[in-house]
């Protein structure tokens, strides 16, 4: 199993979720984060003082998928979340050793 961590633009969340559902993804963890990256760096004024906006609001998705589903999920995310403009985000893939569904006690790929 793989843990896919994706950081995307907030307004893309619904679209990405829908598309992931279509390919059979049944669970997600969604969190709001601040992203630091190339997209930042423009300046704003606050009460006459200039400052650099470093952190941009982003959505972080985490989903655990079966190994053979992982490429498809990554593809779906990268296609759907893409606007072509800077700050579209990243996808990272990590290996998951085990999974467990608390309600049923199922483990492994059945738990996803």
């Amino acid at each position: 199993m793989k843990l896919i961590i994706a950081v995307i633009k907030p307004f893309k969340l619904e679209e990405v979720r829908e598309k992931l559902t279509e390919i059979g993804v049944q669970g997600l963890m969604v969190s709001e984060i601040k992203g630091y990256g190339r997209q930042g760096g423009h300046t704003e004024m606050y009460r006459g003082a200039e400052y650099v906006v470093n952190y941009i609001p982003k959505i972080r998705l985490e989903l655990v998928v079966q190994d053979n589903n992982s490429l498809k999920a990554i593809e779906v995310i990268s296609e759907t979340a893409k606007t072509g403009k800077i700050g579209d985000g990243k996808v990272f893939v990590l290996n998951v050793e085990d999974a467990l569904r608390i309600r049923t006690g199922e483990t492994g790929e059945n738990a996803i």
Partner: protein
Amino acid sequence: MFKSLKILITTIIACTLTAKALSAEELSSELVSNHTVFILNTLLFLIGGFLVMWMAAGFAMLEAGLVRSKNVTTQLTKNVALFSIAAIAYYLVGYNLMYPGEDGWWLSGYLGPILSIATLDPVGLKGFDELGGYSTGSDFFFQLMFCATTASIVSGTIAERMKLWPFLIFTILLTAFLYPIAASWQWGEGWLYKIGFKDFAGSTLVHAAGASAALAGAIILGPRLGKYKENGTITPMPGSNMPLATLGTFILWLGWFGFNGGSQLALGTIGDAADVSRIFTNTNTAAAGGALAALILTQIMYKKIDLTMVLNGALAGLVSITAEPLAPSIGGATLIGAIGGVIVVFTVPLLDKLKIDDVVGAISVHGVAGIWGTLAVAFSNGGLGAQIIGTASICIFVFLLSLLIWYALDTIMGIRVSEEDELNGLDSSELGMDAYPDFSKS
């Protein structure tokens, strides 16, 4: 707010009319009886008073909105506490100190009686012969709110780094002594009043005085950690809650009708009623002028409107018109307010350059705009000399004594929280209570 004067005039007018020996019909259809005058004047004080009381909530919300969330509970606590302290200090010491009457001065024109507590009219005015123009209780209530306002101004400037207790002790001294003594020079008919200084509702006596105390505090206290970097850059520390800051501004705007309108001190003649109306209108338009000036100016200078500056601008407009809300035309009042708004947009960054860290902009709003408003009285009423002397003497007096007190407090008990406590937020170190502990579903 020259109380006795006003009453005199009111009475004279009433008497004159009576003296005209009108026929009974004319009489009853034109005169406002002494008793009715008394009731209406009292009512003005009460309505004005509760509106100014409401400003305490305005300051609390404005400041809670402009500090970072880790300091919000402390800021709220300071605001509730200072208002309560003012109520008691002004009762025990301040009120009679501020209005010594003819014979009450300890140092004629400069210092009233310190050991003298306020009392009210007896219940039902029982055994009351002498009929003044209004009830003492309504006057006390109204004047107390001005005293509390002065203290409210201080709390915003020194936010996010000052310990709770030194602030509360300073508040006691400010509301019991500093403000009442300074105000007595004018409203107690002391020396400033005698030289012809004019400050209708207190651009200087309340607002610039409060700002002077705040400035002294900010100097002794120093800026927030990380606010001014060594390389000269300024780190903005955005306020945590814009709706609260906006709500606070609207509350203050509303309360200001009581602040300025009530300072007419009389509603018992048609002239007074018309004047209170002028004051309401001018107060409102000055706020509008201040807000729009700041809005346009930040758009031009920064390419984007800065809401906090617009809010500060509205308040600066209100402060500016406070010294003379009656004489100007609507257009004049708008202009006076607009200049207040411009002042704020320029002095807020200026103070930052001087490394004076004023969290909510109170020194600019209440101090600089307050001085502007007081001097601007000379446009309509002349007497620039007296205006300068009055403004300077009040500000310097309050500033120097405040500096002394802050310094003493700092020496005795330390007025600033530790570095770590400041970084973690005062709500955690001073109170152990978060302002927004969840915003979650736990």
